[in-house]
């Protein structure tokens, strides 16, 4: 799988970017020690002028590079946690609906419908405004708008597996239906869900950036969206303050799509053979 991926140039570029991002996120405290929200120098130093502060400083004299490094940590955390919550909740609901059938299925799917007709961003906005902006709340808020995809996919998979021979034989041996659902059927429903998970991670990172841009992110951590919003006040004099964190966002999301798409292609190619 890795070797097949390494043959694709776009997967190599995306993979390298993604590894770099995760490494920066994991090593942020070592790469840029100290509080990234602390004052590091004179305010509004332009990029590439001061060797100690390579990307310059913002209106309050905070290092832009330190913000970028610690912001990577926030984005990676949000992307991973939101996707995990969305996939876990979606698969639980989808498997339950598909396995139970009847009224339970009908009821659960109407709830899925309800979540799908409400714009996820508005739902996240409402949830954060109620629960308060902490990193975990933001991650859950974003997952609220993302779990319906995994739910539909796993339900469809479960419906097609429900009557399979191995499920029938598990029933005959007296296995509890919940155990059959969790241990026999759910693992097989995982691959289609994982195939869309890269899209969920990328979407979560973009949604978090938009929430932070509107001032609804966690105020105690650095976020790229927050940095963009902060730089907006100097758009006429120091546009780089908003442009640089945005470029980091674009690079992150592109790398996730590139890797996700390449993995999808490789998996599709295998199935065809």
């Amino acid at each position, binding site marked *: 799988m890795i070797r097949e991926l390494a043959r694709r140039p776009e997967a190599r570029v995306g993979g390298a970017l993604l590894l770099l991002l995760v490494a920066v996120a994991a090593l942020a405290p070592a790469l840029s020690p100290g509080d990234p929200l602390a004052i590091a120098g004179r305010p509004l130093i332009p990029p590439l002028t001061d060797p100690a502060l390579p990307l310059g400083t913002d209106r309050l004299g905070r290092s832009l590079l330190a913000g970028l490094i610690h912001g990577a940590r926030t984005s990676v955390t949000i992307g991973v946690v939101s996707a995990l919550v969305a996939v876990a909740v979606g698969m639980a609901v989808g498997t339950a609906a598909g396995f139970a059938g009847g009224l339970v299925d009908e009821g659960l799917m*109407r*709830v899925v*419908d*309800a979540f*799908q*007709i*409400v*714009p*996820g*961003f*508005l*739902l996240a*906005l*409402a*949830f954060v*405004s*109620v629960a308060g902006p902490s990193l975990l709340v933001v991650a859950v808020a974003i997952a609220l708008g993302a779990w319906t995809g995994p739910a539909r996919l796993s339900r469809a998979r479960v419906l097609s597996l429900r009557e399979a021979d191995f499920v029938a034989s598990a029933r005959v041996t007296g296995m509890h239906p919940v155990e059959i659902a969790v241990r026999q059927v759910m693992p097989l429903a995982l691959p289609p869900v994982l195939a869309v998970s890269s899209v969920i991670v*990328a979407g979560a990172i*973009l949604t978090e*950036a*938009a929430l932070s*841009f*509107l001032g*609804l992110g966690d105020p105690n951590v650095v976020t790229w*969206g927050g940095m*963009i919003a902060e730089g*907006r006040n100097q*758009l*006429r004099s120091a*546009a780089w303050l*908003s*442009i640089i964190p*945005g470029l980091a*966002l*674009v690079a992150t*999301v*592109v790398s996730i*799509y*590139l890797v996700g*798409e390449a993995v999808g292609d490789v998996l599709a190619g295998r199935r065809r053979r």
Partner: protein
Amino acid sequence: MPRLARLVLRRLAGSVPVLLIVVVGVFLLLDSAGGDAVDAYLVSIGGGDAALAEELRARYGLDRSVLARLLLTLGQLARGDLGWSVALNRPIGAVIAERLPNTLWLMGSATALAFASGSALGIVAGRRPGSAIDRLLSGGSLMLYSVPSFWLGLVLAVVFAVRLQWLPVSGIETIASGATGLARAADVARHLVLPVAALGTIYLALFLRVMRAGMVEAWGQDYTLAARARGVSSWRVALNHAARNALLPLVTMLGLQAASMIGGSVVIESVFGIPGFGRLAQEAVAGRDAPLLMAVILVSAVMVVAANLAVDLACGWLDPRIGSGRGGRG
């Protein structure tokens, strides 16, 4: 057309329970917040005594139990009354009616632009999969698809409004310009160029990718091969055979993206200072105005339902096999 009317009615009736789930869910979510609109209002007027707070709560019905307020809200909604905004001190229905046209213009233009150019570029890219132009367009669309719309909006504003000064930075029209008729329409259009570009780009990229994928799939089908064998030129096959069939998933995508576009308009309207429907959501959060936020969410949900209904009707018209639930492939 009684059959069409029946279909529309059936779909609308089916969406009532789903909308009910939305109302009850959002109501309970917003109700669990600490502090209400009266608190926010008192802060904004510089505080007041307990008696004033009591009186205001009684006036807005905030002193009753959760269930009583939920039933009250449902009754109001059933009569078509969206309630009273505490933050704006106006009926919510009137505020939304005033704000919605700006947002509909923004979203409608962005959708039209993204659909037209996305599908055209998708045909160009998908005509010869793997060619240089296909690689350029596919790579470019992946980049554009990854750009956060609010950041794109800021960059466009810096370049075209601040540096080049071709277009206005913000607002929906020049304040107190006194322009009417066509002059006013041109003014509004000038204000909408950048927001529409910022909101529409991501969908342009998406439509391009979906169209290209549909074209690639069509090239593997027998009917394109047969057309080529009959000696039909490759552009004709691309346009009349492949693109026609690739269009259907694109139309479906329009409905699927309706909800995400409303979310996008919230941020774009904030970037460009457009007094629209999306920005109401942000104002409601800032003003702790739960009834206003709920109304915005509910109206959005209704718009998504309507968009999907329209898309289904369009699909039925484009592809007669999708015979309104009867016959066909189903």
